[in-house]
């Protein structure tokens, strides 16, 4: 049943998120074209009357600002849509179907987490594509900015030839990066989900406002717990860190592993608290 839940959530998210993703790429192309116009315009502006010059420049600047703002906005819209699906599908009219399906409450939550996580990744990939398109095509007068491409390839070569790096380091770094990204996506989604559930439980009216309040409340409590845990870790682990004084990479790995551990633990807590509320205290009005 989990697979089916993921399928329907994934499809529903696709309807709203794919247009946003494609829109982001279109915006990147748009800002790239505006930049090209800027470069062309700069070549000819000495030959134009001052008035026309100012007008053109203002219009292009406005378009550019619009393009960038819209790109940033699309990231927020994507997150909003991810959360809206959870809110609508669980606590509005659609919740009447969601919670009468013969499935475990934990699976409903897990299905929503996995499908939203996949879409968060897809959105991220589209965001990176948009940035790369702009950097390569939109930052120089020539069609392609060769400096950027050279820069990328140099950074790539440098990375693969760091002195003292073993094969193990080259395996550990991507693994840790991937785990960090996955855990932080899960932690964020589950924090928002829990806040929405709590907001709907405690408030009779203004449920969205209550959810926002619960987000800050849960986040604050989590930060206090995390900083306490970190202080304890540091005290207990200080001798270990000192003994690793001449191995800076080890210290970085340990730091990231602890961060992943904390993120994963918070995700698990958020998940099970949310599941317990949905299972034991669900009251759809």
């Amino acid at each position, binding site marked *: 049943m989990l697979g089916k839940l993921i399928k*329907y959530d994934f499809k529903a998210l696709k*309807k709203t998120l794919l247009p946003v993703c494609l829109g982001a790429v279109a915006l990147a192309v748009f800002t790239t074209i505006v930049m090209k116009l800027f470069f062309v315009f700069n070549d000819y502006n000495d030959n134009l009357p001052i008035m026309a010059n100012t007008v053109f420049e203002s219009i292009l600047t406005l378009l550019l600002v619009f393009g960038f703002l819209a790109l940033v906005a699309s990231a927020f819209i994507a997150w909003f849509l991810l959360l809206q699906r959870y809110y609508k599908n669980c606590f509005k009219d659609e*919740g*009447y179907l969601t919670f*009468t399906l013969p499935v*475990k409450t934990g699976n409903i939550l897990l299905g929503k987490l996995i499908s939203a996580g996949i879409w968060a990744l897809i959105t991220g990939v589209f965001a990176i594509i948009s940035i790369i398109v702009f950097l390569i095509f939109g930052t120089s007068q020539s069609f392609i900015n060769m400096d950027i491409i050279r820069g990328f390839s140099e950074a790539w070569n440098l990375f693969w030839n760091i002195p003292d790096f073993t094969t193990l380091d080259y395996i550990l770094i991507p693994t840790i990066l991937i785990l960090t990204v996955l855990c932080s996506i899960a932690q964020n989604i589950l924090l928002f989900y829990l806040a929405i559930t709590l907001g709907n439980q405690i408030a009779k009216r203004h449920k969205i406002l209550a959810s926002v309040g619960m987000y800050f409340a849960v986040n604050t409590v989590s930060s206090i717990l995390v900083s306490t845990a970190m202080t304890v870790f540091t005290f207990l682990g200080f001798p270990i860190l000192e003994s690793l004084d001449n191995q800076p990479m080890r210290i970085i790995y340990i730091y990231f592993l602890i961060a992943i551990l904390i993120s994963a633990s918070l995700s698990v807590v958020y998940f099970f608290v949310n599941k317990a509320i949905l299972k034991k205290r*669900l009251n759809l009005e």
Partner: protein
Amino acid sequence: MNELLICKDLTKNYSYVRALNQVNLCLEKGKIIGLLGPNGSGKTTLIKTIAGLLKADFGEVLIDGEKVGEKTKAFVSYLPERNYLDDTMKVYETLDLFNDFYIDFDRNTAEKMLENLDIDINRKFKNLSKGMKEKVQLVLVMSRKARLYLLDEPIGGVDPATRDYILNTIVSNYAPDSTVIISTHLIADVEKVLDEFIFIKNGEIVMQSSVDNLREEKGMSVDEYFREVFKC
């Protein structure tokens, strides 16, 4: 064991309002039962508690011996008094959804019924008229071979001709050993299909009886008796 649904001391409060007050019920298999009461009497609260959308403050519900949960949801078919489908879906996608999740769903029956109703399954749910949406939901719910049907105001928002169609659909689609609970305040319309009726008022069961008994003992129809009991 012929009982299908047992409610024991079911109590539910909404802030300061007692929506259900120690409701005790025992319903048998193979009956069509009207859950009748004025607005705000607790009909919807009772149905939602049986469906698993509300948690009772006290008491318990047993359906075929099981507490409300994943297992009971597999054999309880619930029609809410609102649109509960994702309205960006096409009608055939909602059929897919029911087919995927409910093993007792009969897709062929559903498609035939929709065809009889002239509803194009390629249309988006949100582009259908209000009456059509209600019909699609009813078709989905009645195309399941469930043990218990919970129908909350199934005829509330439609014209009399459609009401008859809906009631016929209900009567001709439920299996002999399943039970149907219909909540409504349009008593005259449903009376002809009911075996039993339950009067509910201020969250309490006022009366539970068979329609035939009422006719024999009081010489009244359910509609007439309802007007007498709930006279303002």
